[in-house]
C-alpha cells in the first residue's frame, strides 16, 4: 500500500516502576496499522491491551521503542502537541463512557471543538448534527444520567467523531452494555469504518465483538502472539 500507515510501532516496550522494581507490561510490540483498517486487539487480562491503547492514544508514554503516528514520531512531541493530536486526529470511546455528568449531551459532544478553538456559532450546530448522526438529536439538552448506557456510549462516539479524527480507539466499548445494545454500537463503528474510512482500533475480550473487525491482533504477555486477517463478514449484518 503506497499510503503511510496510520500507526507504526517498532519494538515498543512499557514498564511501570514499582517499589519492587520495574514491572514489564509490554515487552516488544511491532505493528503497522494502515488507513481504514478495523483492528481488534484481544488477549487475556494483564496482557497489556489497555496499556497499548493508552500509548496509541497518546495518554501514556512508552518506555522503549518507537511509535510513529501518520509519519510523526510521537515520542518526540511535547505535551501540547500530544493534546493537539488527541484533539484533532484521535477519538476515544471508553468502556465507562466518560461523559461529563453536569454537561448536556450537546455540550459533551461539543467538548473537543471547544479545545480545538471552534467558535460557538459553528460548534453547537456541528455537535447537534453529530448527535443526530448517532440517533440522539432529540436528547441534546438532556444530561448523561438521564439516558441509558447504550445511548451514553453513542454520545461518546459522537464526541469521538465530532472533530473528524482519522483514528478511533475503542477500549472495551461494549463492556458495560447488553448484547443487543453492543451489536448496535458495533454496527455504528463498522459503518464509520466502511463508509467514512476511519481507522478503528478496538480492544475487547469478547470474540463476537472482535468478529466485527477485519484484522485480529492477539497479545500475550506484552507481545504480539498472533496477527491475522479475519474473514469479511457477510453484508447482511444483524439488525441494528
Amino acid at each position: 500500500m503506497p499510503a503511510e500507515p496510520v500507526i507504526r510501532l517498532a519494538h515498543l516496550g512499557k514498564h511501570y516502576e514499582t517499589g519492587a522494581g520495574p514491572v514489564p507490561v509490554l515487552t516488544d510490540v511491532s505493528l503497522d496499522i494502515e488507513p481504514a483498517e478495523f483492528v481488534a486487539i484481544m488477549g487475556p487480562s494483564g496482557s497489556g491491551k489497555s496499556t497499548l491503547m493508552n500509548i496509541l492514544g497518546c495518554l501514556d508514554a512508552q518506555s522503549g521503542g518507537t511509535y510513529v503516528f501518520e509519519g510523526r514520531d510521537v515520542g518526540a512531541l511535547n505535551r501540547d502537541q500530544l493534546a493537539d493530536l488527541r484533539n484533532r486526529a484521535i477519538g476515544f470511546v471508553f468502556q465507562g463512557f466518560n461523559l461529563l455528568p453536569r454537561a448536556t449531551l450537546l455540550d459533551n459532544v461539543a467538548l473537543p471543538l471547544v479545545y480545538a478553538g471552534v467558535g460557538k456559532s459553528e460548534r453547537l450546530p456541528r455537535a447537534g448534527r453529530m448527535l443526530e448522526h448517532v440517533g440522539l438529536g432529540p436528547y441534546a439538552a438532556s444530561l448523561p444520567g438521564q439516558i441509558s448506557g447504550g445511548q451514553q456510549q453513542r454520545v461518546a462516539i459522537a464526541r469521538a467523531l465530532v472533530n473528524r479524527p482519522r483514528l478511533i480507539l475503542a477500549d472495551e466499548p461494549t463492556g458495560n452494555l447488553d448484547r443487543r445494545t453492543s451489536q448496535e454500537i458495533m454496527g455504528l463503528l463498522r459503518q464509520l469504518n466502511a463508509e467514512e474510512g476511519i481507522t478503528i482500533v478496538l480492544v475487547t475480550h469478547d470474540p463476537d465483538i472482535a468478529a466485527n473487525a477485519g484484522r485480529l491482533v492477539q497479545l500475550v504477555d506484552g507481545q504480539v502472539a498472533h496477527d491475522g486477517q479475519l474473514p469479511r463478514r457477510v453484508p447482511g449484518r444483524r439488525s441494528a
Partner: protein
Amino acid sequence: MKIGPLLSEAWQAMGANRLRTFLTMLGMMIGVGAVIMMLAVGQGARDLVDRSIVSMGRNLFVVLAGSATASGVRLGTGNVPTLTLGDAEALEQVPTVGAVVPILPGTAQVVYGANNWGTNVLGTTPRFLDVRNWRLSAGLPFNDSDMRSATQVALLGQTVVKNLFGDEDPVGKTVRIGKSPYVVMGTLAAKGQSLDGRDQDDAVLIPVTTAQRKLFGSQFQGSVRFMIAQAASAEAMPAAERDMTQLLRQRHRLADGVDNDFSIRNLTALVNTAAETTRTMSLMLGAIASISLLVGGIGIMNIMLVSVTDRTQEIGIRCATGARARDIRLQFLLEALILSVVGCLVGVFLGVGGGLLVSLVARMAVVVTLSSVVVASLVAAGVGIFFGLYPADKAARLKPMDALRYQ
C-alpha cells in the same frame, strides 16, 4: 480556547455545589467587607484630625509668658506679664516667622437686649483670622487703626450669635461686654469643636489694645498672656523656634545661664502626633482586616484543591478530548477568580453597609473612600489568583492517564 465556554463551565461547576461555593465566597465577603469597613473607620478618624489641623491653622507655635517663682511657690505659665506687644512686633520681623498674633484672653459677660452670655473674650490683632484660618461669615474684621485707637468693636463667634441674637442679624448692633458698649463689626464662620472638645465658636474677638486698656486693663499693663506665631513654612519651624528664643532672650535681657521667662510650644507637633496616632490606628485596623482577607484566600485554595481531587476524572476526560495543560489551568484559575470576585463584590456591599451601620450606631465618623474599595477589590482578585494558582497548576500537571483512571 475561548473564555466563553470556560465561564459557563465554571458557572456549572460552582452551581453543582452551591453550599460549598457560598461558604467559600463567605470567607472572601467577610475579608473584603472587613477591610473596607476598617479602612472607612480609620479614614473617618483621620479626616477628623485633618479638619482639626486645618481649623487650627498650620505651622503654629504658642509663645507663653513665663512662669515665676515667688518664695519657692512656682506659679503656672502666663502668670507673670513678660510678653508685650513690642515683643510681638519684634518677632514678626524675624525672616523665619510669618506672622505673630498677641492674645490677651479672658472671660466676660456679653449682653444684648434681654439676653446675656458668658463667653471667652480674646484681645488680639486682625491677623489672628489669617493665622487661625478663620473666615468671617458676615461683616468686616477690625483693622490696624482700630488697634491703634483701641476702638470698642467686636467679632462674635457663632455660639455667641445664637445665644444673644437668635435669628437676628448682629452686624452693626451694639452689645455690652463687661461694662462698656461694643459695636459688632462681623461674625465668625462656624469652626466646630477643637481636638480636645472645646467649642471654638464660643468666643468674641476684640482688638488687643482695647482688651489691655479697657476690658482687662488693670491686671496686665501693656502685656499679653500669650502669642500665636506662625512659621514662614513647615520647613522653617525649627529655625523659627531657635530665632524666636534668641530674640526674646535678647529683648528680655536674660544673661547666659538664666532660664527663659517664656516658653515656646510647637502646636503642629502635637497635632502631628495625633495625626500619626490615627494613621497608625487605621493601618493596624487595615492590617487586621487584611488577615481575614488572607484567610478567605486560603479558604479558596482549600476548596479548589478539594475540587481538583473531586474532578480528577473530569480532568482526564478533558485531556483525552484534547485539552492542553493551559486549558485545564485556565479553567480552575477562572473558577478561583470568579469565587473571589463575586465574594469581593458582595464584600464591598457588606463593607459599605457595615460602615454606614457603624456611623449610625457608634456615631463615629466613617468615610468609605473609592480607593479603599478599589484596593480591596484588586487585592481580593489578586488573592483569588494567587491561591487559585497552586490548585490549578496541580490540576494541569495531572497525567492524562492517571486522571482518567482515577475513581
